[in-house]
């Protein structure tokens, strides 16, 4: 049961990275690319959390925490810049 759930999560993460990178390549405007990078960040955080469970090392969750806080900061800074603010 748990193995099946982990397999489905890995397949969903695979598809998320694939289509996110595709949007990054094909993106017409800058906003498309920034949204794609934000989505890829969330998918990467879920990948780190999945690997922390698979490998049984919960120190990896700290990496996911730092990752989430800092990428959120970068995306917010880019959004402020695109509004001509900063």
């Amino acid at each position, binding site marked *: 049961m748990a193995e099946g759930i982990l397999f489905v999560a*890995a397949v969903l993460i*695979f598809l998320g990275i694939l289509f996110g990178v595709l949007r990054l390549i094909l993106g017409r405007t*800058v906003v498309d*690319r920034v949204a794609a990078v934000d989505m890829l960040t969330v998918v990467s955080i879920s990948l780190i959390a999945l690997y922390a469970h698979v490998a049984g090392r919960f120190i*990896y969750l700290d990496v996911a925490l*730092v990752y989430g806080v800092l*990428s959120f900061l970068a995306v917010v800074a880019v959004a402020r*810049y695109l509004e001509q603010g900063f």
Partner: protein
Amino acid sequence: MLELLVYLLCGSIIVSGILAVRLDSLMAAMVSGSLAGLFAAVCYVLLAAPDVAMTEASIGSGLSALIFLYTIRRTAGAQE
């Protein structure tokens, strides 16, 4: 199953590096370069180096993106 994800991550690092060089808009190039750093941090985690991954995520993604934004704004070179 995880090997396939690692291959996809390494291919994504290469693709975002090429995009960071080739894109015309400075903002999109900066975002693509930041994405290469983020995926490199995930690869470091999968290679069992969480401290290196934490440093890469904080400096390569957070700090360098902010410095690039500041520089683009100060030099007023953000042609879309």
